[in-house]
């Protein structure tokens, strides 16, 4: 078996992983290795053929594949060592990974490991949706792959499960495949298309008009034999079920971090995000292991992931120079209304990140919303937001972390009306 050493091992060549690699190069680090399990680097944006990428970080409007290609091209230009079709399958030491690929197995020992393994949508089974195991059931990810990469017709009438941003990607992908979306089903009392780039909304108006959002509803079961024939949609308020004929069901959103490698390496996880617990510098509680991108908390826009990549690169450089793995921190515990908070460890403010952001997502609609952060009896932070919508994340400043007492207990993060 091949053995090699590297300063920094980056697992995952999506926007977060590649942005981190480029930033590390810019900071003067030459010895780093990026591993990507897919045959092509670029990550999730490769599958999203719609526009809306690159606004925050590349300052222009790009399609997903264009955005992914730009990162890969930059990495190539900066001579980042990138191995595709190479999967990390195990940890063989605290910072040593075992990878497999067409070249065989190799053991890679690093001084720091960045996990940027992304996320996935929960498929039908994980949502415990009953009924037949027919063909014609997709997630947005698999649908995009069929339509854009295989140029494949998928069906004629589709029901979309979810009415959040990614559900619109599914809607557009279905339109491209000439499959009519007949309904979008959400368990919430309203759709969650807030904060969408306005021209996209206008472009979608016609499609949305034809795919009514069924609110307070859930797919009760899928009916069919070889192929889906209908879905039974249950009104969660009345308990009534109605059958909607369709041959395609697309499960959208309900993101879960691809945490396999993090968990199998004993990296402590956060109960809210389901990703590794990290502080504002994206350090995990395992010394030398960092995390960035959608692994942290499910899908955010690609530019958010890329910005995290840049941030984590600086954090990794500091770690390599100062070995500051042992840092004071207390967990940020979300209350019942809050789905997750990221970062979820409060750590002291430092020169590296004088003012950062804390993102959070709520479980229900709040209009207006009051965010309150407390420790013991002390209110550290309070802010009123116009509205908070589920399946959308909000960013607040993290300057309140200066007030945290690291000898006291956890910080409570609450959102109220």
């Amino acid at each position, binding site marked *: *078996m091949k053995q090699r050493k590297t300063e920094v091992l980056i697992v995952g060549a999506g926007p977060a992983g590649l942005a981190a690699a480029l930033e590390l190069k810019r900071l003067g680090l030459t010895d780093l290795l990026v591993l990507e*399990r897919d*045959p092509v680097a670029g990550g999730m944006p490769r599958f999203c053929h719609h526009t809306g990428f690159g606004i925050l970080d590349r300052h222009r409007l790009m399609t997903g594949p264009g955005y992914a290609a730009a990162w890969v091209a930059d990495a190539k230009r900066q001579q980042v060592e990138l191995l595709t*079709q190479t*999967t990390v*399958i195990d940890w063989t030491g605290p910072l040593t990974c075992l990878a*497999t*690929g*067409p*070249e*065989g*197995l190799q053991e890679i020992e690093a001084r720091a490991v960045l996990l940027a393994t992304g996320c*996935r*949508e*929960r*498929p*039908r*089974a*994980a949502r*415990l949706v*009953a*009924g*037949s*195991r*027919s*063909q*014609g059931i*997709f*997630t947005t*990810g*698999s649908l995009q*792959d*069929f339509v854009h*990469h*295989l140029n*494949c*017709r*998928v*069906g004629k009438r589709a029901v979309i499960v979810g009415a959040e941003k990614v559900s619109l990607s599914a809607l557009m992908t279905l339109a491209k495949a000439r499959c009519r979306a007949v309904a979008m089903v959400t368990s919430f009392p309203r759709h969650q298309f807030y904060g969408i780039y306005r021209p996209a909304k206008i472009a979608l108006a016609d499609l949305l008009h034809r795919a009514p959002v069924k609110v307070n509803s859930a797919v*009760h*079961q*899928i*009916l069919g*034999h*070889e*192929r889906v024939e209908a879905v039974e949609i249950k009104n969660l308020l009345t308990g009534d079920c109605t059958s909607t004929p369709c*041959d395609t069901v697309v499960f959208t959103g309900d993101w*879960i971090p691809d945490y*396999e490698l993090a*968990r199998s390496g004993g990296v402590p996880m956060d109960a809210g995000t389901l990703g590794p617990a990290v502080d504002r510098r994206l350090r995990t509680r395992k010394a030398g292991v960092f995390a960035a991108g959608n692994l942290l908390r499910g899908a955010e826009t690609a530019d958010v992931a890329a910005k995290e990549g840049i941030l984590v690169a600086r954090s990794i450089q500091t770690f390599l120079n100062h070995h500051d793995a042992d840092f004071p921190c207390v967990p940020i515990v979300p209350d019942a209304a809050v789905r997750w908070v990221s970062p979820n460890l409060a750590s002291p403010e430092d020169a590296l990140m004088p003012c950062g952001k804390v993102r959070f997502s709520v479980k229900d609609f709040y209009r207006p919303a009051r965010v309150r952060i407390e420790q013991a009896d002390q209110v550290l932070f309070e802010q009123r937001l116009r509205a908070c919508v589920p399946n959308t994340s909000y960013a607040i400043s993290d300057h309140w972390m200066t007030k945290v007492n690291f000898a006291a207990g956890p910080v409570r993060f609450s959102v109220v009306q």
Partner: protein
Amino acid sequence: MTNLKPPMKPFDVAIIGAGVVGCAIARQLSRYTLQCVLIDSEPDLGMGTSKASTAIWHTGFDAKPGTLEARLLTRSYHLLEDYVPQAGIAYERSGAVLVAWNEDQFNALPGLLAKAHENGVRDVHLLSVDQVYELEPRLNAGALGGLMVPGESIICTYGLPLAMATEAAANGVALQFGFPVKSVASGEGAVQLLSGPAGSLACRYVINAAGLYSDEIDRLYGYTRFTVTPRRGELIVFDKFARPLVNHVLLPIPTGKTKGVLVSPTVYGNVMLGPTAEDLKDKTQKGTSNEGLDFLWKKGEAILSPLMKEEVTATYAGLRAATEHSDYQIFPSAEQRYICVGGIRSTGISASLGIAEYVQGLLEEMGVALQPKAEYQSVRLPPLGEAQTRPYRSESAIAADPDFGRIVCHCERVTAGEIKNALNSAIPATTLDGLRRRTRCMQGRCQGFHCHADVSKMLADHLGVKPASLIGYKE
């Protein structure tokens, strides 16, 4: 797959049903100089009861002593002990723990122990509460005691019929899929003609191993001895991160009042919870129900609550061939040159080799001369279980073919090489489902989020069809 070319001379033996029992009989008879054919109405083998079982290889410790089922289970267990490792079928001898949660169940333990001993399963023994928690520390509090059955094992439920059918085919048994039998007619001499929408087939002897449909085939011969009631068993499969929660198969204790469910590790490294038991009318109803999943969820909470905090990887339902009788319905009819092998209930995997040997005996009693073949070819399956070395981890496999280092399905780490092999094997995958069951692609935690399209493309390219046709899209 079709390897019949009419017109042709009649087969000596036709086996109806390519489930685990039919495949075992086909393999058993392939040792002799007989022309056999294994037929099934489905496009692949193991598509009925065998497809969705709890994947437990039972010792038969709790079978009703003196029944044919008890006898064949015991015999089969020993035959499988040789065959399963030799054929490379994924299995683990995990052992089973029966946990008593109430007085009734606790009081049933000595009876179960006596029954096990009567069935010749001698290593079964009682466990104290402390011993139960020592073996299964993650179990919910409240257990009163238990019973240990060291011989109970977990097995790859699809690998067993696949290995046996492949071996049968390698030794000359013809395979005919997509061939439902709707009528039987006497031809000239001792020949019978099996017919259905896909055509006709001539043979001298017929073995009915049609599982869920064995009563319907039996009626074609004029019998109304039993009726198969499809008994739905729903199952929930949990993420591989749940695997450390359970060390043994946790079997329920039957008390007559309530049916329990089991929690079991799988050979692929998941944890399985189920099954429900619900009698249905429709033999094609293989979907899950909200009631069933709710029921399992509550049971899981009561047995091993940390399990319910892990992600669910899959849910599915299987139909067992239950009858109004408590024993197997195996009947030879010498005059009709017909053997009925019905009512195998839920013990087909465990009893398969015993049943096959028994059926061979019945054929001989009918006067079929069995002449052993001079050469017999055994077959070994590619490794699929966690206890085996999968290609992605094998330096030598990847060196021989780099496709074994190209992972296509990341969750289950299925490589392009394994998919290529499954497409070109002796009984190749011709559907996405067939490929899924042969390689485990798309069976992992993402359920195809990442690989559904890639795998479909590989199969479509191989078959020379459009990917859309594989997902059931019709213009």
